[in-house]
């Protein structure tokens, strides 16, 4: 069976060989993805247009809301714009690295193509999670950064280097939370073939991630903070950038939830792999 620790032969030198091997493999996967995208250039550009439109849609929704109010909880208009930007940034980077791979998993199981990946002498989760790169995600993430900078200017805020580093680290945790949870959902496809609907259902959760946490209370807030931490993934980084952090506890909570999701996701994946029976045999 494959194990998450990469196979290191006994004869390997002291510097772990996987440290050189895996970046090499990943580079090859990147080259493949670039070649694939460039094969359908107009389609590649159109998908960027689609994402830009949906991003604009979210921003216009918020500007319409703020025609009729000055604050939502403690959040002012440009703070929410920054929040939506942060959420879009996280979502797009996540999408660039992981989304296609997560949605493809059920297809790999259904067709039995997972056999070939299991046989490769690399960690299976690595190859399944990172096989394709969606380059459009990086273009859209850049746009999100632009919107965030514009919002910061409107807020007359200057951010310190420490804030930016903190922001990026927290975004990384947010991305890992999205990835862990969606990969866990995708693992359900080992049990039922029609898991693609479930995976797309997760998409609805992105809608919550971009909403100001102040708006929520009660059970809803508890569930989406402590069970599915959607209200943390982009709210905490946005609060760091805008000096709105209530206590450092929020940062710790996000990091803890991230670690928790990753562990659960790995356990779920291992359990699911045991359940795998090839489709073709």
């Amino acid at each position, binding site marked *: 069976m494959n194990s998450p620790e990469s196979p290191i032969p006994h004869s390997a030198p002291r510097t772990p060989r996987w440290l050189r091997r895996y970046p090499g493999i990943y580079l090859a996967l990147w080259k493949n993805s670039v070649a694939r995208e460039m094969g359908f250039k107009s389609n590649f550009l159109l998908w960027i*247009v689609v994402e830009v439109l949906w991003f604009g849609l979210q921003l216009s929704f918020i500007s319409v809301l703020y025609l009729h109010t000055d604050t*939502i909880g403690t959040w002012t208009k440009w703070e929410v714009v920054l929040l939506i930007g942060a959420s879009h940034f996280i979502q797009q980077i996540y999408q660039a690295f992981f989304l296609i791979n997560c949605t493809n998993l059920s297809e790999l199981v259904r067709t039995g193509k997972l056999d070939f990946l299991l046989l490769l002498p690399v960690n299976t989760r690595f190859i399944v999670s990172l096989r394709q790169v969606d380059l459009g995600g990086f273009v859209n993430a850049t746009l999100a950064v632009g919107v965030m900078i514009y919002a910061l200017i409107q807020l007359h805020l200057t951010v310190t280097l420490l804030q930016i580093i903190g922001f990026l680290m927290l975004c990384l945790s947010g991305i890992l939370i999205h990835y862990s949870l969606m990969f866990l959902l995708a693992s359900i496809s080992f049990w039922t073939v029609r898991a693609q609907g479930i995976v797309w259902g997760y998409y609805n959760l992105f809608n919550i991630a971009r909403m100001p946490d102040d708006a929520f209370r009660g059970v809803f807030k508890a569930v989406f903070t402590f069970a599915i931490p959607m209200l943390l993934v982009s709210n905490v980084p946005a609060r760091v950038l805008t000096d709105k952090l209530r206590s450092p506890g929020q940062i710790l909570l996000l990091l803890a939830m991230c670690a928790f999701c990753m562990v659960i996701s790995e356990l779920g994946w291992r359990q699911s792999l045991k359940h795998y029976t090839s489709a073709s045999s």
Partner: protein
Amino acid sequence: MKKYWHVINIGIQNNLAYRVNFLFRIVFGFIPLLATIYLWRAIYSGKPSGTDVAAYSLAQMTSYYLLVTIVDVLTAVSEDDWQIAADIKDGNISQFLLKPIDYLTYRLCLYFSSRLIYLAVAAVPLGLFLFFLRHYFIWPADPAAFGCFLASVVMTGLLQFFTSYAMAMLAFWVLEVSTFIFILFAFEYLASGHLFPLDILPHAMEKVLYYTPFPYQMYFPVSIYMGRTTGNAMIQGLFVQAAWVVLSYFIARFAWSRGIKKYSAVGG
């Protein structure tokens, strides 16, 4: 006529296979809906109690989103456009050219049956959801308005279907139609009132939107139900909506006939 009853029957059975998918879709769909309602509550709670936002009370605003969800269950095109595009791409439509079946009517029957099953699956979770929010749900002002609402919903369904059908016809010319479908969907989502009632927009913008078919794909029937469009404006609106339905029907027919010419040239 009888053969189309068979189509509906087959469509119902096919769609029953997707019932779990439908259930997931509707339940997951409640999450953003609930989030939006919470967002509005936070806005109302930041104001002195009893204050209206753009002439909507909190109950009216909540009802608006619930009605949008109901109309969406009744009329949304779920998979039809992808399936039509796939039929064209994979050459499945060849068989319809040989049989005495009209493809558009065939698809309309399938659309109808999928809505029927979707409604049946959605009824329980939607009913529970409405029950929890019953204090915020407003009943229609008078039976006449409710009748007009129903008529308008039927036209909304037809308009949604014909537009999607016409969009799917792009598959005759381009390899990948999903981007085009998503681009149109983005405009529809914003301009038809999925995200917010259109009359909270600045008046000029709302007026401009009324020159497009988008408000008639969602906002218009809901505004009739809520008594925000009444009298002459309502009658006039119903006629405009009917005109959009007829126009979209002809565009759908026209796109098909042009596409078929291209199709036979390639596939022949």
